[in-house]
């Protein structure tokens, strides 16, 4: 199923009756995602999406009665970590959290709960994931994708769309496109994503998109050098012109104490065998040069 989402996905939408939740649920359903349930406390027993999806009061009911195995959370920041922990402790295996502006210390606690429960969290502050032609869980426009065998992982939203569009325009399809989010504390890191792609028989090449701040790209690169030597790998890092000490929109995008610069990430990636593009539009060409034949 590529990684994280696919035909086996049985999705519950937490916050399905909200404005954002309903809008994106319709788009996900139109893409072919199997939405089996919605959760809105107090609206259990009703139906959502023109009568096609049952709404429950709790995630536990959505798991027990509708067989949900994946959750997407369209709950605003104030209630988002509670929703994440509810999903993790109700038997959901894969949880996507879209909300932005969640306090980092709240997320620290939630990530620990998710880890203990053996679940996988993607996000927060992320656009979700799409396995082209199978399922889209999140807010990435479905139209930009092409089914294929390149795994894409990114910390950004619209920058991911830009890169994926460039790939699709060049005829390079994707196995799964995954946005992991721009916050300092996130459930799935670049390294986690690379491990998933490495174990996926449907992925033959890697596109990794990073940005300034933290050292997650460097850690992923070090692992890839050892374990992904056989795969064509390309990368792009945003923020070469970002000044030090300023938070560039994303809470996690900040160069501090000379660490987390685009230069250090680029150097680590190149040392690990990635070809690093200077523009997202160069990614398809570099992937070809790296030997990708798909």
């Amino acid at each position, binding site marked *: 199923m590529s990684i994280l989402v696919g035909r086996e996905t049985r999705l519950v939408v937490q916050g399905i009756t909200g404005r954002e939740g309903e809008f994106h649920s319709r788009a996900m359903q139109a893409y072919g995602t199997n939405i089996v349930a919605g959760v809105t406390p107090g609206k259990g027993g009703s139906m959502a999406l023109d009568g096609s999806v049952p709404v429950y009061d709790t995630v536990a009911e959505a798991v027990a009665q509708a067989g949900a195995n994946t959750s997407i959370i369209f709950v605003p920041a104030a209630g988002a970590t509670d929703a994440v922990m509810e999903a993790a402790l109700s038997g959901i295996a894969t949880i996507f959290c879209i909300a932005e502006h969640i306090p*980092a210390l709240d997320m620290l606690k939630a990530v620990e709960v998710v880890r203990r429960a053996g679940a996988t969290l993607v996000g927060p502050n992320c656009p979700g994931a799409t396995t082209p032609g199978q399922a889209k869980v999140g807010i990435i426009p479905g139209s930009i994708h092409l089914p294929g065998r390149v795994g894409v992982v990114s910390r950004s939203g619209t920058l991911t769309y830009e890169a994926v569009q460039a790939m699709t325009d060049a005829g390079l399809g994707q196995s799964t496109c995954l946005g992991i989010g721009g916050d300092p504390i996130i459930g799935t890191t670049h390294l986690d994503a690379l491990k998933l792609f490495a174990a996926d028989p449907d992925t033959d090449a890697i596109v990794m998109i990073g940005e300034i701040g933290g050292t997650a790209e460097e850690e992923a690169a070090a692992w890839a050098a050892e374990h992904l030597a056989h795969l064509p790998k390309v990368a792009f890092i945003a923020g070469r012109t970002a000044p030090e000490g300023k938070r560039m929109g994303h809470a996690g995008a900040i160069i501090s104490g000379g660490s987390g610069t685009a230069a250090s990430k680029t150097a680590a990636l190149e040392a690990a065998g990635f070809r690093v593009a200077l523009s997202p539009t160069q990614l398809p060409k570099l992937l070809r040069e790296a030997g990708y034949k798909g």
Partner: protein
Amino acid sequence: MKIQESDAKSLLLARGLPVPAWTVARTPAAARQAAEAILAGGEDKVVIKALVLVGGRGKAGGVKLAGSADEAEQVADAILGMNIKGITVQKVLVAAAADIIKEFYLAAVLDRKSQRIILMGSAEGGIDIEEVAATRPEAIIREAAHPHLGLLPWQARRLVFGMGLGAHLKDAVKIATGLVETMLVNDADLVEINPLAIIREAGPDGSPVERLVCLDAKVTLDDSALGRHPDLAAMRDLDEEDPTDRIAREQGISFIKLDGNIGCMVNGAGLAMTTMDLVKQAGGAPANFLDIGGGARSDKVAAAMALILSDPKVEAILVNIFGGIARGDEVARGLVRARKEQARSVPMVVRIVGTNADVAAQILEAEKVATAASLDEAVSMAVAAARASAGGAA
């Protein structure tokens, strides 16, 4: 959000931590008055420190000692109005100059890699900790607080013994635990004491005693949590906030001013950074980072345009929108409206793709706005427009 040393110290005091008394003065006369009170209490000297939200104030001459009220007034007069890394000093902190026996470093930080709050301590305090970390990493001792349990007492003890503070075990454990508490209670990203110091002072009977105190404090708060801490949000130092930054913050627009002449308006932080990078690569210079955010409505677009044009150096504008949640037509309408309202005319290049890009193209075409299909093309058009515009002005 960064807060001033005085506010950071008040957060430590609120957790019961030992912080020597201080006064904030905005005028030389007020600094003199504060110094008089301290010297009358039997102290030999006062320290006067510039209150600014940038590091390196000591090296810049923003921290000085004074031995008399006259001298304190003169020193305060010199520091107030001083420019430290682009910030004009508007207030100083006045406190008794400590008789320091030994300095240490102690900080609670949110560590992204381990996803833990880490307490970092070192016997090499009062200096640049990043230098210690780079050259002698073994001189820094770390303890990770559990996300739910916090820093346990035995961890605090292990840290304190490791730092060589065993002689002050009880006080040091209280400070170590207190730093983590300060972080948790206030949703801070960083609580740093540099230096944490053993000082010599007069005991109750007049004879000298040693005491462990927090001599300096630096706290940064999580912007995402300010909504639930109105008292902390009020600590934002408006003296140091550029008026443009304030407007951007109130409009919910991420905006950072840079030095160039090409104004950028983009949706999404990663794409906004990329757009800046590509402008630079094409030989241009970005005037700003600007992310209008998801689902940008036309009024927000107009506000973003006004922000960009408030910088007189801007000679061309590049709009780059990849519609997802944001609808291209909404942005296009906002741009058209903003151009009719704007005070000065600057060439603009617009690239809108994704959701409703076709409608956007029709709107922009009807208004004769220059458009580009690809990101690379949009960037080179904007760089050329800025060059032509700059050439015309010369």
